[in-house]
């Protein structure tokens, strides 16, 4: 990364990773509480979807969660790649962008999948 991104961009990436971390801290607490409650008595498709379908507040919350992850995760992975794999060329930045795109697409698709009003296929 150091060779291909400007120092200003690097500073901003640090900043955005910390801001997204603050958002994620709140999201994760809510998510963990939700998981622990939901897992009681087993998980079934019907149970999950009964809670989520048509629930736009749920959808908004998890959309924010996904988008914050899209910022936070690739930056972190890039650090690991640079330091532990020695991957410092321009291609590591491209790989991070691709991973971000993957998370955004798959994540928002998953939110849509569970929130979209029931019955449809």
């Amino acid at each position, binding site marked *: 990364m*150091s060779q291909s991104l400007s120092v200003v961009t690097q500073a901003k990436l640090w900043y955005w990773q910390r801001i997204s971390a603050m958002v994620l801290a709140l999201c994760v607490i809510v998510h963990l509480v939700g998981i622990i409650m939901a897992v009681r008595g087993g998980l079934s498709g019907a149970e999950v979807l009964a809670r989520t379908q048509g629930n736009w507040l749920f959808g908004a919350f998890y959309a924010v969660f996904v988008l914050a992850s899209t910022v936070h995760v690739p930056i972190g992975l890039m650090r690991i790649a640079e330091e532990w794999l020695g991957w410092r060329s321009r291609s590591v930045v491209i790989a991070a962008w691709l991973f971000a795109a993957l998370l955004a697409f798959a994540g928002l698709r998953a939110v849509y999948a569970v929130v979209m009003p029931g019955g449809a296929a």
Partner: protein
Amino acid sequence: MTTLNVRVWRGNEDGEFVSYEVPRHASQTVLDVVTYIQRNLEPDLGYRFACRVGMCGSCAMTVNGKARWTCRTHVSKVVENDALEIAPLSNMPVIKDLAADMTTFFDKWSAAKGQFKGNQTRHDEFATVEPGSPERQAVDAGIECIGCGVCYASCDVVTWRPDYLGPAALNRAWTLVNDVRDVRGAERLRAVAGDAGCHSCHTQGSCTERCPKQLAPTAGIAGLKRKVAKAAIKGEL
């Protein structure tokens, strides 16, 4: 009299540990041990020391895996099963035996703009620096660094990123960033920003753990992260 089994690094990077038997005394420092070996057992052992009283930082070496000032390290504190392992500082090229090449360490100090620059002359009034101000307290907390290299040798990010400026250079930059008389401002922030600078610190804390003067480079680097990010966002970087 008991003896110590001391393994000492001999050679340069392609060296090896060589064992020596050293008489053990009460109140013996690791520097005493190294000196004994050079004087009595291995005349061409290369090592550095100067003040031998914990003021200059010249005698820093890796003792049983941790960077320390050997003159200030009692054998009794670090010995394990009557054995010691002494090597040169990590993260620096090895010149010979226990002497490491500190050129890059000091080059990075310079690259971080670790020099004071003012704009007053002898004809101006004295600068007023409020000792109790948060800025001066931040400076005071880090100003005692004598450039011994222990923190730099202890940092894994220095190992993983060859261009990382390292804790000592960044700590010094922090003291200057907070010096109200210094005029280097944005130039220094630019020098310490990014992946070669403060933003690569992962708060491993080895520098703060090992600093023989109990300084906390982690603190200064965290401060630099904030200052630099703010400047970057405001477009002042």
